[in-house]
Structure formats: structure tokens, C-alpha cells
């Protein structure tokens, strides 16, 4: 096992700050925009960004958690079904500008499922995608992020692990390679 740290400490913080400022460029005071984190790992990114935006704008930003388990395209194609997580969307997304968030963008299949899952809560005005890490050249379907923290070139056997201060004790992005 070999670990390469891609982002941590102050650089991690600067990246989050930059993403927030880019969001404000497009969505002004967020009066018509909402953040949705994709379960299980995207919710920490969405919560952090919502917290930072709240500080910058001086008012809270609407943020929800979206579970995509029932919308995945690999049901019946794995040993046992994946177990669902909680969906927490306490607002109407009809006509709103939705920013979907996930920690790592890899094959793009999760995002496809998330777009399906989101429609159960209404028809959004516009949908954008924000990811902390974009694993380039690994897409299975044509999906791209509107906002990206860092871009990484990796191979399929490698893993990108994002840790969060709140749950894992430290803000960090690590590229993990199996050594054979």
C-alpha cells in the first residue's frame, strides 16, 4: 500500500474557499440556489461548503442530503444489494438552481443516478455539479463537473480517499495505490 497525499492542511482550506467563491460568482446571494450532497461521502463536502458560504454571505444556505441507492444501475449485478442511507431534503427543488456535490468524480455513474433521484423532489431550474476531486479520463458516461477542487490522473486500481475533520479527524485527499 502506497499513499500519496494530494491535498491537506491550508491547501485543502484554500480549495474549499475557492469553490465557494466560484459558486458565489454564479449564484450571487444563493436566494434561488441550493446545495445537495450525495450520500454517503458527498454530504460532508456539501455541509462544509454550506458552512463556508454561510460565513461569507452572512446567512444560511439551503443544503440537503440525497441517497441514490435505489437509482443505481448495478442493482442485481452485485452479490448483495447496497443498503440505503438517509435522504434529507426538507425543501422544494422545483425551479431552483441545484448544485449537486460529491467528493470524487470517477465513472460518472453516481451522478447519473443522483440526477434521477433528485427528480423525485421536483423539476429543478438548472443543475450543476461540484466535486472536490476529478479523476480524469475515467468516465463511463459523459458527465463533467462545473466546479472542481483538484484534478487527478489515476488508474483504475488506485483509490482516492477523502477524509473530513468532522468524521475522520483531518481534512485530507489521498491517492492510495496497491503494491503487488
Amino acid at each position, binding site marked *: 500500500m502506497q499513499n500519496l497525499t494530494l491535498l491537506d492542511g491550508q491547501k485543502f482550506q484554500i480549495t474549499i474557499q475557492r469553490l465557494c467563491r466560484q459558486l458565489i460568482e454564479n449564484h450571487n446571494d444563493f436566494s434561488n440556489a441550493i446545495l445537495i450532497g450525495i450520500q454517503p461521502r458527498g454530504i460532508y463536502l456539501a455541509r462544509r461548503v454550506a458552512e463556508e458560504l454561510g460565513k461569507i454571505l452572512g446567512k444560511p444556505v439551503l443544503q440537503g442530503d440525497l441517497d441514490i441507492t435505489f437509482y*443505481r444501475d448495478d*442493482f*442485481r449485478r452485485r*452479490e*448483495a444489494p447496497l*443498503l*440505503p442511507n438517509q*435522504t434529507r431534503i426538507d425543501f422544494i427543488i422545483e425551479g431552483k438552481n441545484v448544485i449537486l456535490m460529491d467528493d470524487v468524480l470517477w465513472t460518472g455513474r453516481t451522478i447519473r443516478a443522483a440526477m434521477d433521484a433528485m427528480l423525485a*423532489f421536483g423539476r429543478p431550474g438548472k443543475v450543476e455539479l461540484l466535486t472536490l476531486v476529478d479523476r480524469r479520463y475515467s468516465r463511463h458516461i459523459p458527465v463533467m463537473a462545473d466546479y472542481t477542487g483538484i484534478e487527478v490522473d489515476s488508474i483504475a486500481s488506485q483509490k482516492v480517499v477523502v477524509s473530513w475533520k468532522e468524521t475522520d479527524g483531518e481534512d485530507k485527499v489521498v491517492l492510495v495505490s496497491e503494491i503487488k
Partner: protein
Amino acid sequence: MAGLSTRHLLGIKDLNRNDIELILETADTFKAVINRPIKKVPSLRDVTIANIFFENSTRTRLSFELAERRLSADTINFAASSSSVSKGETLIDTVNNILAMKVDMVVMRHPYAGAGVFLSKHVKAQIVNAGDGAHEHPTQALLDAFSIREKLGDVAGKKVVIVGDVLHSRVALSNILCLKQLGAEVMVCGPTTLIPKYISSLGVKVEHNLIKALKWCDVANMLRIQLERQDIKYFPSLREYSMLYGLNKQILDSLDKKIVIMHPGPINRGVEITSDVADSKQSIILDQVENGVAVRMAVLYLLAGQN
């Protein structure tokens, strides 16, 4: 991630505690789904399910069908009364003919105990038992446990009494097995003739006095007298049964605590339970029906997801 330990749902007997908890937790998510503006998810869109009912049913059949549709499965329905079964076709032939139409799962209700187990040994499809004779009705027990957990926070440590025709009730057996697995205390109550002789070997208390049973319990599950299964007279008259084992408002109000009232349906108002009790705030009968859809969605999702 671990799924269910079984490929079919034939009875609670085949489930371990992890299986039951997994189903209840998954049902929590489905309950949220069916309370959304769009109540459907696409999980089972490439799954075809046959609902085969050799016995009458309202709630269970509609509940399964709704659960299947909310999961986007394709469904076909079959009622024995309007089929070739009356022309002499055997169970295996009937089901194999249905399966030849590329059906993945069979939800079956049958008047004979063990029909689901028998079928699971002879056909390829996954079988869900929707009630087999006086044997088991696993999804009813799961939705009852789910409803108790929802109302009282937990099943473990709760005292549940099952009142009435325990002898002919598949709901009673499945409920006893399920509640015991989850750590509840269970008592059965009814006339001696309607309590199976060796029922205490399942680890349940037996009581023949309704008032004593109700004073003991947190939850009372009132069963219907299944006259259609009674080949001989088990008690002198329905009126006498109702006087001794019927739950009315007067009895309910005389208790020093507010117990939860359940009923698997169909209700015979005025026999095992009076209307004012069935419609009272302590009754969770309609919650049971609502939860039935969520629990059945969880069962179908977890079974169909096995590869």
C-alpha cells in the same frame, strides 16, 4: 455488504435477527420514499413478479402489488378462482407455466401450510410467502414489528399479547417468532380450544383471562376468528366469545396504562374488537397497513438484489 441470509422469504423461522433488523432498517428508507411527492424508485425495473393467490386477500395482495409497482417491477396477477387450477392443473405446473413467461419472483398465498417451501424446491424463481394455511405470514409479522418499533421506539423488552384464534392463525406464529427474535416478551390469550397445546414450547406465556393479559401487556394484537378454517365448533357462540375475549372501550379505559391496539385485518367489528376501540387513538391498525407497503418494498428489494 451483507444482505439477507436466505434466497426466499418462506417464513420468519428462516430469518435470523440480523435479517429482521436489516429488513426493518431498509423499510425505514422506503417509508420515506412512499411519503415523497414522487413515490416510485426504479430499482426493480428489470424484475417481473407474479402474485399468485390461491386464497382470498385484500390488504396483502394490494400491498404487495403497490410495493412492486413503487419499485418499478413488472407485475402479473393470478387468482386461483378464475384460473385453470379449477380445471385440475397442479401447483408446480401452474407456477412453471407462469415462470415460462420469464418471471423472476413469485409472491404466493396458499391454503396449505408448506406450499411455499414445496414450491421453492421445485422452481427456479424466488418465492415470497404471502400466507400459507395456518402456518406463517412473514411479511405481516415484519410489518407488525415495524409498527411496534415505530410507535414505541423499540421492540426489545416490550410485552405483546396476541389475543384470539391462535390455533388457526398464521399471523400468530410468524408474530411470535419475529417478536421473540427481536427480544420482546410474548403472551397468547384465548379460549383453551383455540390455543395450541404445545405453544409454550415457543417461549410464550399463556393466559385465558383477557383482562389479566391486557394488564400485563404494552401491545395487544387482536386476531380475527377464522371461521372458514374451523371444521368443528371451538366455542359455543360468537356472542359468548365476544363477551369473554372481545376488546371494548370499557375494558380499555379500565386499564391503568395506554396500550397499543393492533389488528392484522380483516376486522370483524363487534366480535374481537368494537368499533370505538378499532377507531380509537390507541389503535395503529391503519398505520400497520401503511407500513405494510414499506416493509414489503424492503423485502422485495433485498431479495431481488441478490445475484
